[in-house]
Structures are given as C-alpha cells and as structure tokens.
C-alpha cells in the first residue's frame, strides 16, 4: 500500500497543518485527521506487529473495531497510554505516538522468529509444546514467551490526571450519533422530555461522515439539535455498558484530543445515566474475509478505505483491488473511483451480481471478476499483488496492486442490546444476529437493528481455496493471531461449544472483543462441526464495549479522596503531638505517642507504666454508640444480648456480650442505663454499623410490636478515657453536678452532669483494670475538654496513650477483643465467658445454637494465656501451636496465638491464645514452631495482673 493525500476532499482542515511523531519520526497531518489517516496519507503501511507471531500488520479498519494498529500515546510523565487504536486517536499538534510489540523496530522485529516457528505455536500450545522438562516452563519458557507476546506496556507511575463523574437522568437516551441516532434524537427532542445523545467519535455523523451527499443534512440536523434546550449532545463519549433498568455507563473523553499544554481540568468524565427509554443506534461493523494472506499490510475493509478517502481525503493506494462477497464492496469501490482513487479490479465470489453495479463498474473502467476468489496475497511489509482463481480453486491469475479491500458483509452491533439481556435472532440475509426481544425499555434504530440498506450478499466462513486451512495464514482474529486452521484444530481436538472454542483458541478475547472476528469464527466452527450456526451458540457480550481507564471508573474516589478516612474531633491534637496512627475499620486512630528518640516498644512501655502508676488519657471516640429508647428497651436488650438487663438499675452499667443466631460471639461492649427506658449501648469500633443493622433487623422484622427505637450516637459523643490511680483526682476539679466519691459513684456506673461547663455522660468503666472513667461529651466540645483534662492532669504526669497501649493493658487483664481474640467461631464458653450468660433467660439471640452438638462436644478451642519460657520472647500473633514439637510434618495444630505483647507492667512477654481443650492444659507446656526455631510456652490463666480486681474498687 502506498497511501497518499488526495488533492481535495474530506472534512479535514487543510489550512490547519499539524506536526506529530510516530516511532520517533516526524510526520505532518491536518486538523480533523486521526493518527491513522495521517499516517496512511504519509505512506505508512506497517502499524504494528501481531501479538503472537509478530507478523507485520497494517490498518484494517477506521473505527473502534480496528484490531492491528494499536499504539502507545505519550502525553508526558505518568501519562503514557498503551493499546489505543490509531483510528480513534485524534491528531493534535505535537502528538507523540509509538507502535507496540516490536523489537527493535516495526520494520525489523526479532520477534518475527515466532512467525517462522509458527508450527510450534498453534492454539492451546502452552498445553502441548514447551512441556519438558516441567521445571523449564516456570523458569525459561513462560518468562520468554511472556516477554515476546503482548501488546503495549503498562504504565508504572501514578496517573497524575484527575477525573470527573456524574449521574444524569433523561427520558430518552440515544446511543450513537449517526443518521439513525440523530433522527431519533430530533424526534425525541421534539416530543419534550430530557434527551441525551452520545457518540464515541470526535464529531457526530457516523456513517454520514463518509458520504458527502449527507453533509448538508448533517449540518442542519446538528444545528436543530443544538437549538433544543432539552437535548444534550455528548461527543467523544463511549457508552461502555448497559445495565439493569436502563442504567448506562459512559465515559466522556475531555482532553486527550488537545495538546497537553492546552489541556486543563478533568481528563475524562464518567456518566452514570438512568434513562426512561434507550434508543440504540450503534450501526454495523463490516466483516473481513478469511483467506490466505488476509493480514498483509494493505489489506483493509472496503468501508475503511471509503472513510479514509471521503472523510479524511486519503487514498489507500495507487492501484487498488476489491474482493467482495457483498454489494457494499461495489458501492465503496465506485465511491472511491469517483474520488479519483484507481480501482484496478473488483473480484466477487458470487457468479451473479446486480447488473447496475456491474455496468457502473465497467463505466468507471474497473475490471470485474465475478465467480472468483482471492487465493493469495503477495508482499510482506506491504501488498504488492494478489492471486485470484475462479471459485478459488481454478487456474490462478495475478493482479498487481498496492491495496486489497475486502467486503465480507455487515454485522449489526448488538453489544449494548445484549448487555441489557435483549435476545437475538439469526438473520440469513444479514448472515448475522439481529436484536429480537428486549426486557428493558430499549429499541434499536438503523443498521444495528437491521434497518439499513447495504445491499445484498452472501456469507462464507472462509474464501474457497485449493490449499487446506492448516496450511493457510488465514486470520480470523487479527489481534490474538487466531487462524481459521486454529478453529478447525479446536474442533478436531474435541471442542464443541463456541464458549470452549473461543477460550481454547482465544478467538474474540482480545481488547477488540471480537468485533471483527466473532461471526467469522462462528461460521468456521459451524462448518467444522457440521452444525448450523444457530446451534453452535454465540459468546456473551460483556462490558466494557471498548477498554476504559480505571481513573474514569473511580469517579470521585481517587488519590486523597480514594476513601473517606474518618477522624475523631481529638485527632488534630494527636497529630500535633506526634502520634503515630493506624487504621481501624474506616478510622485512623493514634497508636502511640513517641517522645524524642522513642521507638514503638519504648513509647508503649512508658505509656503503660504511666497508666498503671499514675494516670493516662485515651481517645475512645470511635467506639460505636447506640441510644436504645422506649418502654421495651430492657426487654429488647435482653433478647439481643446474652446478659440479663431488666434488673440493671438506672445509673448502672453492664458489660454486654452479643452472639449471632448461630451462637458465635459477634460483638461486645458496656451499656449504661440512663433511665428506665433509655440505654446508652456501646459496641466495638469496627462493629458499630453491623451491630445496629443486626438490631434493626430483629426489631423491624421479628419483634415489630416492641416499643423501642435505636439511634446511632457514635459521632455525637466523643469519649475521653481517663485511666489510672489518679484518674479521679484529674477530673474532679472539672466536673460539676456529680458526686465522684467511690460510694456515690461505684465501678460500672454512669452519671450525668457537666465537665468544663459542657454536658457529660460520665461512665466509671475500665478497660485497663485501673480506676477509670470514660468522659462522654458532645463531639463539638471534645477537643477543648481533652485539652482541659490534659492541663488538669499535668501535676500527675498525665500521659496520652494510643491503641497499642490500650491493647496491652486490657490483655494483662485478660479482656478479649472481638475480632482479634475471636474470629466468628468462638462461643461464650470457649472464651471462658459463661458468666455473661443470663442463666434464667428463656431466650436470646444465639441461645438455641449454644446447645448444638458441635458446641457442647469436647475438643473446642478455648481462650487461655501463654507465658513463654524466655520472658523476652514475644510470640507472633497468628502463630500456630502444637503439643508435640517432634511430630512429623504436617503437624497437628491445636490452636493459635491471638494477642501477644511485651508487658512493661510484668517485665516480660504475655500472650493470649485459642487452644483445643485449653482449660484442661493449665500449667502444661505447648510449642510454637517458627521458621528456624521452636518456642516453648506454658498455659496459664488469661488474667496476668491483679486477678482479684482490687485496683478497680478505689
């Protein structure tokens, strides 16, 4: 092929020249060109190297169905995009593009050795060749094959662009801005209601853009659409998926067509559109023909050549041959001839062709060879000639040419129709599937619905030839290098279903999703199977219609907005005081507060000592809180928790244990009874939403008659835990209206009053085992109260502590953390918490399951403590435990370490674990095998410190 720019014609702006680079070389084009049209105009024939065989490939098509001309566009650092289709890349000044999958260059690609060794790379080769020795597959063959096969290279730097997103609603959504779509949009717009028309190209018009006779109508129609206030036209917008109830996802490309320096704002916008009615106007895609040599650069779809000439003013060659099985090939040839492109011959497999086409061709001086087929293509980096034969099997005749256009018929685009679960029916006249019945409010107009006149034709699986398929290089799927012989091979090897044939050969599985290969592959399989096409099946159409960027699909959730990071009202103080943070559920929490030069170990040790010896303060605001209110509040809690609640007096607190209906611990927390009909219930940080949802489920659907309501107050109340022997001393001067003396305010009680002038619910509770209070204040005042407590505590050396210290101190007291010491398979008895079950309660959630056979049998894992022989050895959380370290592998694992810390309080390590029949093993030695060594530890009770709890009662 030696393409060149025609002296006139096309929609390009010949007054606006553009310079661009391809593979390091400078080229020129015009505004309105695509990368493909400008390169063809410059005489480029080879656009890429094929995936597997590294065969030189040229441009096949001018739409998104293009399988060969895949390029990488470089818009600057972090903005390199691979696998774009050259005909979809709008040319702009300074565009920098590169071909892919070739080394060192397109013209000389060492990977072409794969083509010579093609016999070793048939379909499914990785199951058949390169099998010996087995170890060589992983170390030698696979890495080598991966390096040699492939398309573009993935970016390795973060995407600096930003992306926008929106929802939109309309009464009518028209997808496809060709003649049929524009007409539908005008009609809907005239009826009133909101109309959105989207088109994937740089300008609307579709097929009309390659037919100058329609340009006047096009301009006038677009002007009418623009004048309608209720119509929105989106170009450069691809509808990539059609989902339930007319929900369509689309991506609008905002800046890729602009020079990077001129691009500002979001690069792409995600449209999430809900439509009352969807009108699909996606058109049809021309089918290639399957024959030996059909992938030599210069072999192109006839409609693509027409588009190049009439829309872009580019001739594909100086002497063009057309191979058709369809009238449209003749129409395109005649249009090209009228545009002064020399057509040497039209070859048609059919013996009989419409006489009007024949006479028009003869009048244009075009040789006609009906009843003939192309049997071979000469040339490697560019077409230099073709061989044709009568019926494909007769005596060969050579025709010199530099481009071969192929017209295999048309396939209506039913992708989005199929996403929406519309059914299809086979149409013999089209030789393709057409839309049949819809389940959504959707209809098809124009070619995609079978309502277009391309003329008539025949459909053949492959062109007839004397050469057997397995000796032909006859490509079906250009992008995945699948030949007709591969499909026949799959059938010979026993594959019957098109789904299996597709996956075995990879036909239709490339980034073009088989737009030019699915139907040809189906026909070849049908013939090989000797079954009608309709019985072979059709593979599933799946979104996205064309590849989409992750950036667009993320919507607002990117970089700093990737996900909400929840912070408490006191978080700012923690940050200013050097806290190191950790993620807990969606929250960030202060883990520890290192002072100068401290590592975590040192900081935590200091914080722990400070709490036990004097006083510490901890931000517990993230804990879930639920206000349970109503006359039936206690009854409801009785049913939800294992504990009894009715006897709890107002002003008192109780630790509550919550099970799932299957009997396993799911959450816990202290609840305070504020009044007869009002409870302040707490949950774990991570369980807050889950617990409230579970409660609502039971309340709404099982016990709707109960007069009780649940309100989340997690974020209303900030919680400042003041823990340690001096805790009361610290808060006393700040608290009003509450008698803090031990008799008036015992452990596990709650009082209302004021602190620093702010209303407070003051709980006397302790997760540390020391005298402790949890100061609940409305979040808006939290920081001020925290700072006041800090000031008041200075004389006692008050120490802020984080979640790590909180974990260590509670572990020293043997308190479980749900989700760490439990894993959804732990019962109250397993955890040694039978005491939390109200024995007289007739029923509560999970009670019945505690009587299940597996729950009462011996051998369950039980919560125990572990003390390592070497007090300096801190076990790893999650480490497995065995009874006999000398047993052969695989060893019988009898449990695992759930929590493990260095205890500054005890001056040695402590650990908690779940161990089979653990309580019967008190005092026994168990073993923790680790890489390179085995650690010995002794089973002990879970309370390591102040087992009598005397420190709580001051």
């Amino acid at each position, binding site marked *: 092929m030696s393409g060149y720019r025609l002296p006139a014609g096309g929609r390009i702006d010949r007054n606006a020249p553009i310079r661009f680079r391809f593979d390091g070389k400078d080229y020129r084009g015009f505004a309105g060109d695509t990368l493909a049209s400008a390169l063809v105009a410059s005489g480029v024939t080879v656009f890429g190297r094929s995936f597997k065989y590294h065969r030189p490939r040229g441009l096949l098509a001018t739409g998104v169905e293009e399988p060969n001309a895949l390029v990488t566009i470089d818009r600057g650092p972090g903005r390199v995009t691979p696998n774009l289709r050259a005909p979809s890349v709008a040319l702009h000044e300074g565009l920098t593009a590169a071909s892919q999958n070739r080394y060192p260059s397109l013209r000389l690609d060492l990977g072409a050795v794969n083509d010579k060794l093609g016999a070793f790379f048939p379909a499914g080769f990785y199951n058949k060749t390169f099998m010996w020795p087995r170890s060589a597959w992983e170390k030698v063959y696979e890495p080598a094959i991966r390096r040699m096969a492939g398309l573009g290279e993935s970016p390795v730097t973060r995407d600096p662009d930003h992306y926008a997103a929106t929802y939109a609603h309309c009464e009518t959504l028209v997808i496809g801005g060709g003649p049929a779509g524009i007409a539908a949009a005008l009609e809907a717009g005239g009826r009133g209601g909101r109309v959105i028309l989207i088109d994937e190209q740089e300008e609307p018009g579709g097929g009309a853009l390659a037919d100058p006779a329609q340009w006047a109508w096009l301009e006038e129609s677009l002007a009418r659409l623009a004048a309608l206030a209720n119509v929105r036209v989106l170009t450069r917008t691809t509808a990539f998926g059609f*989902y*339930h*109830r007319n*929900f369509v996802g689309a991506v609008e490309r905002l800046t890729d067509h602009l020079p990077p320096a001129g691009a500002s704002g979001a690069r792409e916008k995600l449209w*999430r559109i*809900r439509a009352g009615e969807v009108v699909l106007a996606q058109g049809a895609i021309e089918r290639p023909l399957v024959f030996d040599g059909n992938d030599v650069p210069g072999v192109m779809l006839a409609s693509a050549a027409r588009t190049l000439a009439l829309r872009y003013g580019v001739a594909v060659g100086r002497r063009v041959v057309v191979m058709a099985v369809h009238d449209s090939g003749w129409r395109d040839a005649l249009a090209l001839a009228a545009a002064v492109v020399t057509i040497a011959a039209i070859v048609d497999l059919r013996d009989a062709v419409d006489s009007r086409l024949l006479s028009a061709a003869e009048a244009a001086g075009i040789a006609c060879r009906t009843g003939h087929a192309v049997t071979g293509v000469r040339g490697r980096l560019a077409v230099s000639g073709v061989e044709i034969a009568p019926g494909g099997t007769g005596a060969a005749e050579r025709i010199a040419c530099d481009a071969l256009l192929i017209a295999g018929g048309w396939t209506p685009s039913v992708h989005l129709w199929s996403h929406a*679960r519309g059914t299809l029916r086979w149409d013999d006249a089209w030789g393709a599937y057409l839309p049949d019945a819809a*389940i959504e409010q959707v209809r098809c107009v124009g070619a995609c619905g079978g309502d277009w006149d391309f003329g008539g034709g025949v459909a053949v699986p492959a062109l007839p030839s004397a050469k057997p398929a397995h000796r032909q290089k006859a490509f079906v799927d250009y992008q995945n290098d699948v030949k007709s012989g591969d499909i026949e091979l799959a059938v010979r090897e026993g594959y019957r279903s098109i789904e299996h044939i597709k996956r075995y050969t990879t036909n239709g599985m490339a980034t073009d999703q088989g737009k030019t290969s699915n139907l040809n592959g189906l026909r070849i399989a049908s013939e090989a199977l000797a079954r009608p096409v309709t019985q072979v099946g059709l593979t599933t159409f799946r979104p996205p219609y064309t590849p989409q960027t992750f950036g667009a699909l993320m919507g607002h959730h990117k970089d700093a907005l990737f996900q909400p990071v929840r912070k408490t009202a006191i978080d700012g103080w923690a940050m200013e005081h050097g806290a190191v943070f950790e993620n807990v559920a969606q929250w960030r929490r202060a883990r520890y507060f290192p002072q100068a030069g401290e590592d975590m170990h040192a900081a935590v040790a200091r914080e722990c000592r400070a709490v036990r010896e004097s006083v510490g303060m901890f931000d517990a605001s993230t804990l879930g809180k639920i206000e349970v209110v109503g006359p039936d509040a206690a009854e409801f809690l009785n049913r939800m928790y294992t504990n009894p609640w009715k006897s709890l007096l107002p002003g008192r607190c109780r630790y509550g244990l919550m099970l799932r*209906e*299957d009997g396993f611990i799911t959450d816990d927390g202290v609840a305070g009874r504020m009044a007869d009909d009002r409870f302040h219930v707490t949950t774990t940080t991570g369980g807050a939403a889950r617990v409230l*949802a579970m409660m*609502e*489920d*039971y309340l*709404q*659907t*099982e016990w*709707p008659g109960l007069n009780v309501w649940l309100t989340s107050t997690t974020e209303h109340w900030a919680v400042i835990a003041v823990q340690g022997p001096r805790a009361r001393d610290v808060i006393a001067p700040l608290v009003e209206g509450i008698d803090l003396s031990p008799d008036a305010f015992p452990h596990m009680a709650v009082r209302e009053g004021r602190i620093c002038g702010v209303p407070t619910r003051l709980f006397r509770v302790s997760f540390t085992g020391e005298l402790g209070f949890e100061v609940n204040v409305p979040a808006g005042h939290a920081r001020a109260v925290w700072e006041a407590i800090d000031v008041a505590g200075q004389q006692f050396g008050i120490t802020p502590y984080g979640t790590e210290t909180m974990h260590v101190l509670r572990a020293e007291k043997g308190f479980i953390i749900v989700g760490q010491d439990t894993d959804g398979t732990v019962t109250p008895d397993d955890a040694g918490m039978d005491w939390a079950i109200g024995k007289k309660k*007739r*029923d509560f959630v999970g*009670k*019945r*399951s505690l*009587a*299940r*056979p597996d729950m009462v049998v011996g051998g369950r894992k039980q919560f125990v403590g572990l003390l390592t022989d070497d007090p300096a050895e801190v076990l790893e959380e999650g480490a497995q435990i065995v009874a006999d370290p000398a047993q052969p592998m695989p060893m019988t694992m009898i449990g695992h370490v759930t929590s493990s810390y260095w205890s500054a309080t005890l001056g040695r390590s402590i650990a908690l674990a779940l161990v089979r029949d653990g309580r019967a093993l008190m005092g026994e030695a168990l073993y923790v095998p680790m890489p390179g060594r085995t650690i010995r530890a002794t089973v002990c009770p879970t309370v390591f410190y102040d087992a009598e709890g005397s420190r709580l009662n001051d």
Partner: protein
Amino acid sequence: MLLIHCPYCDEDRAEVEFVYGGEAHIARPPDPSALGDAEWEAYLYLRANPRGRHHERWRHTHGCGRFFNAVRDTVTDRFETTYKAGEARA
C-alpha cells in the same frame, strides 16, 4: 444498577441505597428451645435458592431505613413486586 420500588417511600430508588436481606418470610421460631437440631439447622442455614421467582427481603438502608419484601426473578433480575414488612406473602 437496579431500580427498586420502596413500598414505604413509594418511589423507585437506585439499588445503591439498599442492602439485600436474604430470603423472606422465614420467621424466627417463637420458642427456639423447643426445636430439634435438624429443625434449628434448617432455620439457620437452609434456603430455597430458586431459579426464578424469589421472595426476598431488602432494606432501604440509605433511605427510609425500612425492611420490606420483594418478589424478584433471579434469572432476569426483574422485580415483580415489593410490599411492606408484615404484609402477606405475594
């Protein structure tokens, strides 16, 4: 994204506002202690899982917050109807 008709709001709302709630009309036994192990296991774990018409619960979590029932075809994902909690099985 599905559109679901909340029978309380009496409006079609986007699926993202809802949370699926499993099979409907499975009442918690009033006296679980009276059930044998096989019956209790069936209540906990066994579900119809039909191909086709499925009676199920949804909760309009990010809307009115109510649980309600629906009949949905598990093959086409079409909702046949939705109705309030406590109403008779459709």
